[in-house]
Protein backbone atom coordinates (compact mmCIF):
# COMPACT_ATOMS: atom_id res chain seq x y z
CA UNK A 1 0.00 0.00 0.00
CA UNK A 2 1.39 3.37 -1.03
CA UNK A 3 1.22 6.48 1.08
CA UNK A 4 -1.43 8.86 -0.23
CA UNK A 5 -0.99 11.64 2.33
CA UNK A 6 2.03 12.45 4.39
CA UNK A 7 2.03 15.13 7.05
CA UNK A 8 5.53 16.14 8.07
CA UNK A 9 6.42 18.18 11.10
CA UNK A 10 3.25 20.26 11.00
CA UNK A 11 2.88 23.27 13.26
CA UNK A 12 -0.26 25.42 13.45
CA UNK A 13 -0.49 28.53 15.60
CA UNK A 14 -3.53 30.75 16.07
CA UNK A 15 -3.14 34.41 16.85
CA UNK A 16 -5.84 35.30 19.34
CA UNK A 17 -6.63 38.24 21.57
CA UNK A 18 -5.21 36.40 24.55
CA UNK A 19 -2.02 35.28 22.82
CA UNK A 20 -0.62 32.66 20.49
CA UNK A 21 -2.39 29.29 20.68
CA UNK A 22 0.00 26.52 19.66
CA UNK A 23 -2.70 24.18 18.41
CA UNK A 24 -0.58 21.71 16.42
CA UNK A 25 2.92 21.02 17.64
CA UNK A 26 5.10 19.06 15.22
CA UNK A 27 2.70 16.42 13.91
CA UNK A 28 4.01 13.75 11.54
CA UNK A 29 1.53 11.25 10.15
CA UNK A 30 1.06 8.99 7.12
CA UNK A 31 -2.22 7.94 5.54
CA UNK A 32 -1.93 4.84 3.39
CA UNK A 33 -3.89 4.29 0.22
CA UNK A 34 -7.17 2.44 0.79
CA UNK A 35 -7.07 2.43 4.58
CA UNK A 36 -9.28 3.97 7.21
CA UNK A 37 -7.06 5.90 9.56
CA UNK A 38 -8.77 7.11 12.70
CA UNK A 39 -7.42 10.22 14.36
CA UNK A 40 -8.67 10.10 17.92
CA UNK A 41 -8.41 12.57 20.77
CA UNK A 42 -10.33 14.74 23.16
CA UNK A 43 -12.25 17.81 22.01
CA UNK A 44 -9.78 20.64 21.50
CA UNK A 45 -6.73 18.43 20.97
CA UNK A 46 -6.30 19.78 17.42
CA UNK A 47 -7.67 16.97 15.32
CA UNK A 48 -10.08 19.20 13.43
CA UNK A 49 -7.30 21.73 12.96
CA UNK A 50 -5.31 19.05 11.13
CA UNK A 51 -8.22 18.29 8.82
CA UNK A 52 -8.72 21.97 8.04
CA UNK A 53 -4.97 22.39 7.53
CA UNK A 54 -4.99 19.61 4.92
CA UNK A 55 -7.80 21.37 3.06
CA UNK A 56 -6.18 24.75 3.66
CA UNK A 57 -9.41 26.01 5.17
CA UNK A 58 -7.97 27.43 8.38
CA UNK A 59 -9.04 30.96 9.34
CA UNK A 60 -6.75 33.88 8.52
CA UNK A 61 -5.33 34.13 12.04
CA UNK A 62 -3.64 30.72 11.65
CA UNK A 63 -0.01 30.27 10.65
CA UNK A 64 0.99 26.87 9.26
CA UNK A 65 4.49 25.43 9.02
CA UNK A 66 5.64 22.02 7.83
CA UNK A 67 4.65 19.88 4.86
CA UNK A 68 1.43 18.20 3.83
CA UNK A 69 2.31 15.99 0.90
CA UNK A 70 -0.58 14.60 -1.10
CA UNK A 71 0.37 12.29 -3.97
CA UNK A 72 3.82 13.84 -4.10
CA UNK A 73 2.65 17.49 -4.02
CA UNK A 74 3.09 19.72 -0.98
CA UNK A 75 -0.41 21.15 -0.53
CA UNK A 76 0.89 24.01 1.58
CA UNK A 77 2.87 25.34 -1.39
CA UNK A 78 0.23 24.95 -4.09
CA UNK A 79 -1.23 28.11 -5.59
CA UNK A 80 -4.85 28.68 -4.55
CA UNK A 81 -6.15 27.82 -8.04
CA UNK A 82 -4.43 24.40 -7.92
CA UNK A 83 -5.66 23.84 -4.38
CA UNK A 84 -9.25 24.40 -5.51
CA UNK A 85 -8.88 21.49 -7.94
CA UNK A 86 -7.83 19.29 -5.01
CA UNK A 87 -10.65 20.36 -2.70
CA UNK A 88 -13.79 18.42 -3.43
CA UNK A 89 -12.26 16.69 -6.45
CA UNK A 90 -9.28 14.84 -4.94
CA UNK A 91 -10.03 15.22 -1.25
CA UNK A 92 -13.60 15.26 0.00
CA UNK A 93 -14.65 16.39 3.42
CA UNK A 94 -17.61 15.66 5.66
CA UNK A 95 -18.32 17.76 8.69
CA UNK A 96 -19.60 17.25 12.17
CA UNK A 97 -22.94 18.98 12.09
CA UNK A 98 -25.11 18.04 9.11
CA UNK A 99 -27.72 20.55 10.28
CA UNK A 100 -25.47 23.50 9.54
CA UNK A 101 -23.14 22.24 6.83
CA UNK A 102 -25.61 22.49 3.97
CA UNK A 103 -26.63 25.90 2.70
CA UNK A 104 -30.21 26.52 3.91
CA UNK A 105 -31.36 28.54 0.90
CA UNK A 106 -30.45 26.17 -1.93
CA UNK A 107 -31.96 22.81 -2.81
CA UNK A 108 -30.04 19.58 -2.42
CA UNK A 109 -29.68 19.15 -6.18
CA UNK A 110 -28.54 22.73 -6.62
CA UNK A 111 -25.76 22.20 -4.09
CA UNK A 112 -24.76 18.83 -5.53
CA UNK A 113 -24.86 20.16 -9.06
CA UNK A 114 -22.03 22.56 -8.24
CA UNK A 115 -19.64 19.65 -7.85
CA UNK A 116 -20.39 18.47 -11.39
CA UNK A 117 -20.06 21.94 -12.87
CA UNK A 118 -16.96 23.11 -11.03
CA UNK A 119 -14.98 19.93 -11.39
CA UNK A 120 -16.41 19.15 -14.84
CA UNK A 121 -17.30 15.64 -13.70
CA UNK A 122 -18.13 13.16 -16.43
CA UNK A 123 -21.85 12.32 -16.66
CA UNK A 124 -23.48 9.50 -18.49
CA UNK A 125 -26.97 10.96 -18.16
CA UNK A 126 -28.21 14.39 -17.14
CA UNK A 127 -26.66 15.90 -14.04
CA UNK A 128 -29.97 15.60 -12.22
CA UNK A 129 -30.14 11.88 -12.95
CA UNK A 130 -26.59 11.49 -11.70
CA UNK A 131 -27.54 13.29 -8.51
CA UNK A 132 -30.59 11.08 -7.99
CA UNK A 133 -28.39 8.07 -8.58
CA UNK A 134 -25.89 9.24 -5.98
CA UNK A 135 -28.69 9.82 -3.47
CA UNK A 136 -29.85 6.27 -4.13
CA UNK A 137 -26.35 4.96 -3.47
CA UNK A 138 -26.37 6.57 -0.03
CA UNK A 139 -29.78 4.98 0.53
CA UNK A 140 -31.98 8.04 0.50
CA UNK A 141 -35.53 6.91 -0.15
CA UNK A 142 -37.60 8.79 -2.70
CA UNK A 143 -34.44 10.29 -4.14
CA UNK A 144 -36.09 12.31 -6.94
CA UNK A 145 -38.18 14.41 -4.62
CA UNK A 146 -35.44 14.60 -1.98
CA UNK A 147 -33.14 16.08 -4.59
CA UNK A 148 -35.58 18.93 -5.01
CA UNK A 149 -35.90 19.48 -1.25
CA UNK A 150 -34.28 22.16 0.83
CA UNK A 151 -31.96 20.94 3.59
CA UNK A 152 -34.36 21.95 6.37
CA UNK A 153 -36.91 19.53 4.95
CA UNK A 154 -34.58 16.60 5.68
CA UNK A 155 -33.62 14.97 8.98
CA UNK A 156 -30.07 15.19 10.35
CA UNK A 157 -29.20 11.68 9.21
CA UNK A 158 -30.58 12.39 5.74
CA UNK A 159 -28.56 15.57 5.50
CA UNK A 160 -25.38 13.72 6.43
CA UNK A 161 -26.18 11.20 3.70
CA UNK A 162 -26.54 14.11 1.29
CA UNK A 163 -23.13 15.38 2.39
CA UNK A 164 -21.65 11.94 1.80
CA UNK A 165 -23.31 11.69 -1.62
CA UNK A 166 -22.10 15.17 -2.52
CA UNK A 167 -18.51 14.47 -1.55
CA UNK A 168 -18.74 11.11 -3.29
CA UNK A 169 -19.86 12.59 -6.61
CA UNK A 170 -16.29 13.36 -7.66
CA UNK A 171 -15.07 9.94 -6.49
CA UNK A 172 -12.28 11.48 -4.36
CA UNK A 173 -9.13 9.53 -3.51
CA UNK A 174 -9.23 10.70 0.10
CA UNK A 175 -12.26 11.43 2.26
CA UNK A 176 -11.78 13.37 5.46
CA UNK A 177 -14.66 12.73 7.84
CA UNK A 178 -14.52 15.18 10.72
CA UNK A 179 -16.68 13.73 13.50
CA UNK A 180 -19.31 12.72 10.94
CA UNK A 181 -21.63 11.07 13.44
CA UNK A 182 -21.17 13.11 16.60
CA UNK A 183 -24.24 15.24 16.07
CA UNK A 184 -26.46 12.28 15.21
CA UNK A 185 -28.27 9.89 17.50
CA UNK A 186 -26.94 6.40 18.07
CA UNK A 187 -28.91 4.37 15.53
CA UNK A 188 -28.30 6.93 12.81
CA UNK A 189 -24.60 6.97 13.78
CA UNK A 190 -24.33 3.26 13.05
CA UNK A 191 -26.11 3.67 9.71
CA UNK A 192 -23.77 6.42 8.57
CA UNK A 193 -20.70 4.45 9.70
CA UNK A 194 -21.89 1.38 7.82
CA UNK A 195 -22.52 3.51 4.78
CA UNK A 196 -18.98 4.83 4.89
CA UNK A 197 -17.54 1.34 5.25
CA UNK A 198 -19.56 0.17 2.31
CA UNK A 199 -18.34 3.07 0.21
CA UNK A 200 -14.78 2.38 1.18
CA UNK A 201 -15.12 -1.19 -0.02
CA UNK A 202 -16.95 -0.30 -3.24
CA UNK A 203 -14.94 2.73 -4.27
CA UNK A 204 -11.63 2.01 -2.57
CA UNK A 205 -11.71 5.46 -0.96
CA UNK A 206 -9.08 6.25 1.64
CA UNK A 207 -10.73 7.66 4.75
CA UNK A 208 -9.21 9.87 7.41
CA UNK A 209 -11.73 9.64 10.22
CA UNK A 210 -11.55 12.21 12.95
CA UNK A 211 -13.38 11.33 16.10
CA UNK A 212 -13.36 11.33 19.89
CA UNK A 213 -15.40 8.16 20.06
CA UNK A 214 -13.33 4.95 20.50
CA UNK A 215 -16.42 2.89 19.72
CA UNK A 216 -16.55 4.28 16.22
CA UNK A 217 -12.83 3.64 15.87
CA UNK A 218 -13.15 0.00 16.84
CA UNK A 219 -15.86 -0.54 14.26
CA UNK A 220 -14.34 1.00 11.20
CA UNK A 221 -10.65 1.89 11.48
CA UNK A 222 -7.65 -0.06 10.15
CA UNK A 223 -5.12 2.04 11.99
CA UNK A 224 -5.40 4.57 14.79
CA UNK A 225 -3.48 7.74 15.57
CA UNK A 226 -3.95 9.06 19.09
CA UNK A 227 -3.64 12.78 19.57
CA UNK A 228 -3.08 14.72 22.74
CA UNK A 229 -2.85 18.51 23.04
CA UNK A 230 -1.63 19.09 19.50
CA UNK A 231 0.78 16.16 19.38
CA UNK A 232 0.49 12.61 18.06
CA UNK A 233 1.34 10.28 20.94
CA UNK A 234 0.73 6.87 19.43
CA UNK A 235 0.05 5.32 16.01
CA UNK A 236 -0.79 1.63 15.64
CA UNK A 237 -3.10 -0.90 13.97
CA UNK A 238 -6.53 -0.80 15.55
CA UNK A 239 -6.17 -4.16 17.31
CA UNK A 240 -2.86 -3.10 18.83
CA UNK A 241 -4.32 0.13 20.22
CA UNK A 242 -7.12 -1.64 21.97
CA UNK A 243 -5.20 -4.74 23.11
CA UNK A 244 -1.75 -3.35 23.68
CA UNK A 245 -1.80 0.40 24.18
CA UNK A 246 1.68 1.66 25.04
CA UNK A 247 1.47 5.40 25.66
CA UNK A 248 0.22 6.23 29.16
CA UNK A 249 -2.43 8.52 27.65
CA UNK A 250 -3.72 5.80 25.31
CA UNK A 251 -3.71 3.35 28.19
CA UNK A 252 -5.81 5.59 30.38
CA UNK A 253 -8.13 6.12 27.43
CA UNK A 254 -8.60 2.42 26.99
CA UNK A 255 -8.98 1.80 30.71
CA UNK A 256 -11.74 4.35 30.73
CA UNK A 257 -13.70 2.15 28.36
CA UNK A 258 -15.91 -0.33 30.17
CA UNK A 259 -15.32 -3.78 28.72
CA UNK A 260 -17.85 -4.85 26.13
CA UNK A 261 -19.45 -1.42 25.89
CA UNK A 262 -16.86 0.28 23.81
CA UNK A 263 -19.26 2.05 21.51
CA UNK A 264 -21.11 4.16 24.01
CA UNK A 265 -18.45 5.83 26.04
CA UNK A 266 -16.81 9.03 24.97
CA UNK A 267 -13.49 10.34 26.12
CA UNK A 268 -14.41 13.80 27.17
CA UNK A 269 -13.83 14.70 30.78
CA UNK A 270 -12.53 11.29 31.72
CA UNK A 271 -9.02 12.38 32.37
CA UNK A 272 -9.37 15.77 33.95
CA UNK A 273 -8.25 18.99 32.42
CA UNK A 274 -6.87 19.33 28.91
CA UNK A 275 -3.87 21.67 29.03
CA UNK A 276 -4.20 25.29 28.01
CA UNK A 277 -2.54 25.61 24.61
CA UNK A 278 -1.69 29.26 25.18
CA UNK A 279 1.00 28.09 27.61
CA UNK A 280 1.40 24.39 26.93
CA UNK A 281 3.50 22.39 29.38
CA UNK A 282 7.12 22.04 28.23
CA UNK A 283 8.45 18.71 26.96
CA UNK A 284 5.86 15.98 26.66
CA UNK A 285 2.54 17.82 26.84
CA UNK A 286 0.97 14.93 28.75
CA UNK A 287 3.44 14.95 31.63
CA UNK A 288 1.36 16.97 34.12
CA UNK A 289 -1.31 14.26 33.97
CA UNK A 290 1.03 11.30 33.55
CA UNK A 291 1.58 8.98 36.53
CA UNK A 292 5.01 7.93 35.20
CA UNK A 293 6.46 11.35 34.40
CA UNK A 294 9.97 12.21 35.55
CA UNK A 295 12.39 15.10 34.91
CA UNK A 296 13.20 13.80 31.39
CA UNK A 297 9.54 14.25 30.36
CA UNK A 298 9.54 17.93 31.35
CA UNK A 299 12.75 18.60 29.42
CA UNK A 300 12.42 17.88 25.70
CA UNK A 301 9.61 16.66 23.53
CA UNK A 302 9.83 12.87 23.03
CA UNK A 303 10.33 11.81 19.39
CA UNK A 304 7.80 9.42 17.92
CA UNK A 305 9.53 6.07 17.23
CA UNK A 306 8.59 2.62 16.00
CA UNK A 307 8.74 0.33 19.04
CA UNK A 308 7.14 -2.66 17.41
CA UNK A 309 6.52 -3.17 13.66
CA UNK A 310 3.84 -0.67 12.70
CA UNK A 311 3.46 0.59 16.24
CA UNK A 312 4.75 4.10 16.91
CA UNK A 313 4.87 5.80 20.31
CA UNK A 314 6.14 9.16 21.51
CA UNK A 315 7.14 8.47 25.10
CA UNK A 316 10.44 8.24 26.99
CA UNK A 317 9.02 5.46 29.11
CA UNK A 318 8.19 3.19 26.20
CA UNK A 319 10.54 1.18 23.95
CA UNK A 320 14.17 0.51 24.87
CA UNK A 321 13.49 0.76 28.58
CA UNK A 322 9.92 -0.41 28.97
CA UNK A 323 9.17 -0.41 32.63
CA UNK A 324 6.14 -1.51 34.59
Amino acid sequence: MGVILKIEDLYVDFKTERGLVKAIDGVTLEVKEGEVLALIGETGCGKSTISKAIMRLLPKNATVRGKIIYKGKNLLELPESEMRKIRGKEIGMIFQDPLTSLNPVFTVSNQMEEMFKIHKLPTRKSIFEEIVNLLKIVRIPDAESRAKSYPFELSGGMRQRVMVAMMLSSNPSLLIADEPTTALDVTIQAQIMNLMLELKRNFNTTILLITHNPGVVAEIADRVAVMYAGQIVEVAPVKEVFDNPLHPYTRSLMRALPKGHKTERELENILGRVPNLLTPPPGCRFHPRCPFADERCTGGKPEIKEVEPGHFVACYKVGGTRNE
Partner: protein
Amino acid sequence: MKKQLIIRKFFSLLLPIFVVSVFSFSLLHLIPGDPARYILGDFATPQQLAQLRHQLGLDRPLYVQYISWMVKLAHGDFGTSLVANVPVSELIKGRLSFTLKLTGTAWILAWIFGISFGIISATKKHSLIDYGITTLAVFFMSMPYFWLGLMLMLIFGVKLGILPISGPGTWKNLILPAFTLGLPQIAVIARLTRANMLDVLEKDYITTAKAKGLPDTLVIYKHALRNAMIPLITYMFLQIPWLFGGAVVTETVFAWPGMGSLLITAIFQRDYPVVQAIVLIIGTLTVIANFLADITYTIIDPRIRAMG
Protein backbone atom coordinates in the same frame (compact mmCIF):
# COMPACT_ATOMS: atom_id res chain seq x y z
CA MET B 1 -46.54 29.72 -0.50
CA LYS B 2 -49.91 29.49 1.12
CA LYS B 3 -52.60 31.70 -0.35
CA GLN B 4 -54.41 32.04 2.97
CA LEU B 5 -51.32 33.57 4.49
CA ILE B 6 -51.20 36.30 1.88
CA ILE B 7 -54.91 36.93 2.21
CA ARG B 8 -54.63 37.11 6.00
CA LYS B 9 -51.73 39.51 5.72
CA PHE B 10 -53.67 41.54 3.17
CA PHE B 11 -56.53 42.01 5.62
CA SER B 12 -54.08 43.02 8.31
CA LEU B 13 -53.39 46.00 6.03
CA LEU B 14 -56.85 47.43 6.55
CA LEU B 15 -56.44 48.51 10.17
CA PRO B 16 -53.24 50.51 9.68
CA ILE B 17 -54.66 52.12 6.53
CA PHE B 18 -57.73 53.11 8.53
CA VAL B 19 -55.51 54.61 11.25
CA VAL B 20 -53.48 56.51 8.65
CA SER B 21 -56.65 57.87 7.03
CA VAL B 22 -58.07 58.98 10.39
CA PHE B 23 -54.75 60.65 11.23
CA SER B 24 -54.61 62.53 7.91
CA PHE B 25 -58.27 63.46 8.25
CA SER B 26 -57.82 64.84 11.74
CA LEU B 27 -54.85 67.05 10.81
CA LEU B 28 -57.40 69.76 10.09
CA HIS B 29 -59.54 69.09 13.14
CA LEU B 30 -56.86 68.80 15.78
CA ILE B 31 -55.83 72.42 15.23
CA PRO B 32 -56.67 74.21 18.47
CA GLY B 33 -59.56 76.62 17.93
CA ASP B 34 -61.31 77.31 14.65
CA PRO B 35 -59.47 75.84 11.66
CA ALA B 36 -61.11 78.30 9.30
CA ARG B 37 -59.88 81.28 11.28
CA TYR B 38 -56.43 79.67 11.59
CA ILE B 39 -56.24 79.26 7.82
CA LEU B 40 -57.61 82.66 6.83
CA GLY B 41 -56.00 84.68 9.60
CA ASP B 42 -57.38 87.33 11.95
CA PHE B 43 -58.68 89.72 9.29
CA ALA B 44 -61.13 87.34 7.62
CA THR B 45 -64.77 88.46 7.39
CA PRO B 46 -67.53 86.29 8.87
CA GLN B 47 -68.75 85.53 5.36
CA GLN B 48 -65.31 84.32 4.26
CA LEU B 49 -65.08 82.14 7.38
CA ALA B 50 -68.53 80.64 6.79
CA GLN B 51 -67.71 79.99 3.16
CA LEU B 52 -64.45 78.20 4.01
CA ARG B 53 -66.16 76.19 6.74
CA HIS B 54 -68.71 75.10 4.19
CA GLN B 55 -66.03 74.33 1.57
CA LEU B 56 -64.09 72.16 4.06
CA GLY B 57 -67.33 70.61 5.29
CA LEU B 58 -66.64 71.78 8.83
CA ASP B 59 -70.31 72.59 9.35
CA ARG B 60 -71.28 68.93 9.31
CA PRO B 61 -70.86 66.26 12.05
CA LEU B 62 -67.35 64.76 12.22
CA TYR B 63 -68.22 61.22 11.17
CA VAL B 64 -70.16 62.55 8.16
CA GLN B 65 -67.15 64.63 7.21
CA TYR B 66 -64.86 61.60 7.48
CA ILE B 67 -67.14 59.35 5.45
CA SER B 68 -67.68 61.89 2.72
CA TRP B 69 -63.90 62.56 2.66
CA MET B 70 -63.25 58.84 2.25
CA VAL B 71 -65.95 58.45 -0.41
CA LYS B 72 -64.39 61.28 -2.40
CA LEU B 73 -60.96 59.72 -1.94
CA ALA B 74 -62.26 56.48 -3.35
CA HIS B 75 -63.17 58.43 -6.49
CA GLY B 76 -59.70 59.94 -6.65
CA ASP B 77 -60.94 63.28 -5.31
CA PHE B 78 -58.49 64.70 -2.78
CA GLY B 79 -60.36 67.98 -2.48
CA THR B 80 -59.41 71.38 -3.81
CA SER B 81 -56.30 73.36 -3.00
CA LEU B 82 -57.19 76.45 -0.97
CA VAL B 83 -54.35 78.42 -2.55
CA ALA B 84 -54.09 77.28 -6.16
CA ASN B 85 -57.84 76.59 -6.38
CA VAL B 86 -57.25 73.48 -8.49
CA PRO B 87 -57.95 69.85 -7.56
CA VAL B 88 -55.29 68.54 -5.17
CA SER B 89 -54.98 65.39 -7.25
CA GLU B 90 -53.79 67.44 -10.23
CA LEU B 91 -51.36 69.38 -8.12
CA ILE B 92 -49.87 66.15 -6.80
CA LYS B 93 -49.87 64.40 -10.16
CA GLY B 94 -47.53 67.05 -11.53
CA ARG B 95 -45.17 66.62 -8.57
CA LEU B 96 -45.27 62.87 -8.03
CA SER B 97 -43.11 61.93 -11.01
CA PHE B 98 -40.32 64.21 -9.77
CA THR B 99 -40.39 62.63 -6.33
CA LEU B 100 -40.43 59.14 -7.82
CA LYS B 101 -37.50 59.99 -10.08
CA LEU B 102 -35.52 61.27 -7.11
CA THR B 103 -36.35 58.51 -4.63
CA GLY B 104 -36.08 55.82 -7.30
CA THR B 105 -32.61 56.92 -8.35
CA ALA B 106 -31.50 57.24 -4.74
CA TRP B 107 -32.88 53.78 -4.01
CA ILE B 108 -30.98 52.20 -6.90
CA LEU B 109 -27.76 54.05 -5.99
CA ALA B 110 -28.16 52.97 -2.38
CA TRP B 111 -28.43 49.29 -3.19
CA ILE B 112 -25.80 49.10 -5.92
CA PHE B 113 -23.14 50.97 -3.96
CA GLY B 114 -24.29 49.84 -0.53
CA ILE B 115 -24.08 46.14 -1.29
CA SER B 116 -20.83 46.49 -3.24
CA PHE B 117 -19.09 48.44 -0.48
CA GLY B 118 -20.50 46.08 2.13
CA ILE B 119 -19.12 43.04 0.33
CA ILE B 120 -15.72 44.64 -0.26
CA SER B 121 -15.58 45.65 3.38
CA ALA B 122 -16.54 42.19 4.64
CA THR B 123 -14.24 40.20 2.37
CA LYS B 124 -11.31 42.52 3.15
CA LYS B 125 -12.09 42.67 6.86
CA HIS B 126 -9.66 44.80 8.90
CA SER B 127 -7.88 46.04 5.78
CA LEU B 128 -7.29 49.71 5.00
CA ILE B 129 -10.19 49.71 2.53
CA ASP B 130 -12.48 48.17 5.15
CA TYR B 131 -11.60 50.87 7.67
CA GLY B 132 -12.05 53.50 4.96
CA ILE B 133 -15.52 52.28 4.03
CA THR B 134 -16.75 51.80 7.60
CA THR B 135 -15.43 55.18 8.73
CA LEU B 136 -16.95 57.03 5.76
CA ALA B 137 -20.21 55.19 6.40
CA VAL B 138 -20.46 56.48 9.97
CA PHE B 139 -19.73 60.01 8.77
CA PHE B 140 -22.42 59.94 6.11
CA MET B 141 -24.89 58.49 8.59
CA SER B 142 -24.18 61.40 10.92
CA MET B 143 -24.98 64.19 8.45
CA PRO B 144 -28.42 65.69 8.07
CA TYR B 145 -29.66 65.57 4.46
CA PHE B 146 -29.90 69.33 4.13
CA TRP B 147 -26.28 69.91 5.10
CA LEU B 148 -24.97 67.03 2.99
CA GLY B 149 -26.93 68.50 0.06
CA LEU B 150 -25.46 71.96 0.61
CA MET B 151 -21.93 70.57 0.87
CA LEU B 152 -22.31 68.58 -2.37
CA MET B 153 -23.71 71.71 -3.96
CA LEU B 154 -20.77 73.72 -2.68
CA ILE B 155 -18.17 71.23 -3.92
CA PHE B 156 -19.59 70.08 -7.26
CA GLY B 157 -21.71 73.08 -8.17
CA VAL B 158 -19.94 76.12 -6.79
CA LYS B 159 -16.25 75.16 -6.50
CA LEU B 160 -15.85 72.63 -9.32
CA GLY B 161 -18.75 73.96 -11.34
CA ILE B 162 -19.41 70.61 -12.98
CA LEU B 163 -23.00 70.03 -11.92
CA PRO B 164 -26.09 72.24 -11.82
CA ILE B 165 -27.02 73.13 -8.26
CA SER B 166 -30.77 73.46 -8.28
CA GLY B 167 -34.07 73.14 -10.05
CA PRO B 168 -35.27 70.45 -12.44
CA GLY B 169 -33.84 70.14 -15.93
CA THR B 170 -31.69 67.46 -17.49
CA TRP B 171 -30.52 64.26 -15.85
CA LYS B 172 -27.53 66.25 -14.59
CA ASN B 173 -29.84 68.14 -12.26
CA LEU B 174 -30.83 64.84 -10.70
CA ILE B 175 -27.31 63.77 -9.76
CA LEU B 176 -26.72 65.92 -6.69
CA PRO B 177 -30.16 65.48 -5.09
CA ALA B 178 -30.08 61.73 -5.77
CA PHE B 179 -26.69 61.36 -4.11
CA THR B 180 -27.77 63.57 -1.22
CA LEU B 181 -30.66 61.24 -0.59
CA GLY B 182 -28.68 58.13 -1.48
CA LEU B 183 -25.36 58.56 0.37
CA PRO B 184 -26.66 58.04 3.92
CA GLN B 185 -28.60 55.02 2.65
CA ILE B 186 -25.49 53.65 0.93
CA ALA B 187 -23.79 53.95 4.31
CA VAL B 188 -26.58 52.13 6.14
CA ILE B 189 -26.77 49.33 3.57
CA ALA B 190 -22.99 48.93 3.42
CA ARG B 191 -22.87 48.56 7.20
CA LEU B 192 -25.74 46.07 7.25
CA THR B 193 -24.29 44.07 4.36
CA ARG B 194 -20.88 43.98 6.00
CA ALA B 195 -22.25 42.80 9.32
CA ASN B 196 -24.46 40.13 7.76
CA MET B 197 -21.71 38.93 5.42
CA LEU B 198 -19.24 38.59 8.28
CA ASP B 199 -21.85 36.66 10.18
CA VAL B 200 -22.61 34.33 7.26
CA LEU B 201 -18.96 33.81 6.26
CA GLU B 202 -18.42 32.10 9.63
CA LYS B 203 -21.12 29.54 8.94
CA ASP B 204 -20.42 25.85 8.42
CA TYR B 205 -22.03 25.77 4.99
CA ILE B 206 -19.46 28.29 3.77
CA THR B 207 -16.70 25.90 4.85
CA THR B 208 -18.58 23.17 2.98
CA ALA B 209 -18.74 25.33 -0.14
CA LYS B 210 -14.99 25.97 0.07
CA ALA B 211 -14.29 22.30 0.75
CA LYS B 212 -16.16 21.47 -2.43
CA GLY B 213 -13.51 23.45 -4.31
CA LEU B 214 -15.79 26.33 -5.31
CA PRO B 215 -13.98 29.51 -6.34
CA ASP B 216 -14.22 32.49 -3.98
CA THR B 217 -16.58 34.33 -6.32
CA LEU B 218 -19.13 31.54 -6.12
CA VAL B 219 -18.66 31.14 -2.36
CA ILE B 220 -19.14 34.85 -1.74
CA TYR B 221 -21.70 35.86 -4.36
CA LYS B 222 -23.82 32.75 -4.30
CA HIS B 223 -23.52 30.97 -0.99
CA ALA B 224 -22.78 33.87 1.34
CA LEU B 225 -24.57 36.79 -0.32
CA ARG B 226 -27.90 35.03 -0.71
CA ASN B 227 -28.00 34.26 2.99
CA ALA B 228 -26.67 37.65 4.00
CA MET B 229 -29.34 39.38 1.92
CA ILE B 230 -32.30 37.72 3.62
CA PRO B 231 -32.34 40.05 6.63
CA LEU B 232 -31.75 42.99 4.25
CA ILE B 233 -34.76 42.28 2.06
CA THR B 234 -37.17 43.81 4.54
CA TYR B 235 -35.01 46.91 4.56
CA MET B 236 -35.41 47.23 0.77
CA PHE B 237 -39.04 48.09 1.40
CA LEU B 238 -38.93 49.61 4.87
CA GLN B 239 -36.47 52.13 3.50
CA ILE B 240 -38.90 53.47 0.89
CA PRO B 241 -41.02 55.60 3.26
CA TRP B 242 -37.82 56.91 4.87
CA LEU B 243 -36.59 57.95 1.43
CA PHE B 244 -39.81 59.93 1.02
CA GLY B 245 -39.11 61.57 4.36
CA GLY B 246 -35.59 62.48 3.25
CA ALA B 247 -36.98 63.70 -0.06
CA VAL B 248 -38.90 66.47 1.72
CA VAL B 249 -35.65 68.08 2.87
CA THR B 250 -33.65 67.22 -0.24
CA GLU B 251 -36.28 68.65 -2.58
CA THR B 252 -36.39 71.84 -0.54
CA VAL B 253 -32.60 72.21 -0.67
CA PHE B 254 -32.35 71.65 -4.42
CA ALA B 255 -35.62 73.38 -5.38
CA TRP B 256 -36.70 70.07 -6.88
CA PRO B 257 -40.41 70.36 -7.74
CA GLY B 258 -41.55 67.13 -6.07
CA MET B 259 -44.20 66.22 -3.53
CA GLY B 260 -41.90 66.99 -0.60
CA SER B 261 -41.32 70.61 -1.52
CA LEU B 262 -45.05 70.87 -2.25
CA LEU B 263 -45.76 69.64 1.28
CA ILE B 264 -43.52 72.30 2.81
CA THR B 265 -45.06 75.04 0.70
CA ALA B 266 -48.54 73.82 1.59
CA ILE B 267 -47.70 73.81 5.30
CA PHE B 268 -46.57 77.44 5.16
CA GLN B 269 -49.61 78.44 3.11
CA ARG B 270 -51.92 76.52 5.46
CA ASP B 271 -53.25 74.68 2.41
CA TYR B 272 -54.74 71.82 4.43
CA PRO B 273 -56.27 69.67 1.71
CA VAL B 274 -52.82 69.40 0.11
CA VAL B 275 -51.11 68.60 3.43
CA GLN B 276 -53.73 65.97 4.24
CA ALA B 277 -53.41 64.36 0.82
CA ILE B 278 -49.61 64.10 0.96
CA VAL B 279 -49.58 62.74 4.52
CA LEU B 280 -52.22 60.22 3.49
CA ILE B 281 -50.26 59.14 0.41
CA ILE B 282 -47.00 58.71 2.30
CA GLY B 283 -48.79 56.98 5.17
CA THR B 284 -50.47 54.50 2.84
CA LEU B 285 -47.16 53.95 1.09
CA THR B 286 -45.59 53.17 4.47
CA VAL B 287 -48.24 50.58 5.25
CA ILE B 288 -47.86 48.99 1.82
CA ALA B 289 -44.06 48.97 2.10
CA ASN B 290 -44.37 47.13 5.41
CA PHE B 291 -46.73 44.65 3.83
CA LEU B 292 -44.37 44.03 0.91
CA ALA B 293 -41.41 43.64 3.27
CA ASP B 294 -43.34 41.02 5.18
CA ILE B 295 -44.45 39.14 2.06
CA THR B 296 -41.07 39.19 0.33
CA TYR B 297 -39.37 37.98 3.45
CA THR B 298 -41.71 35.03 3.42
CA ILE B 299 -41.09 34.32 -0.25
CA ILE B 300 -37.32 34.60 -0.24
CA ASP B 301 -36.55 32.37 2.72
CA PRO B 302 -37.50 28.77 1.96
CA ARG B 303 -37.66 27.95 5.66
CA ILE B 304 -40.36 30.51 6.36
CA ARG B 305 -42.04 29.77 3.03
CA ALA B 306 -42.53 26.20 4.14
CA MET B 307 -43.87 27.07 7.58
CA GLY B 308 -46.61 29.18 5.97
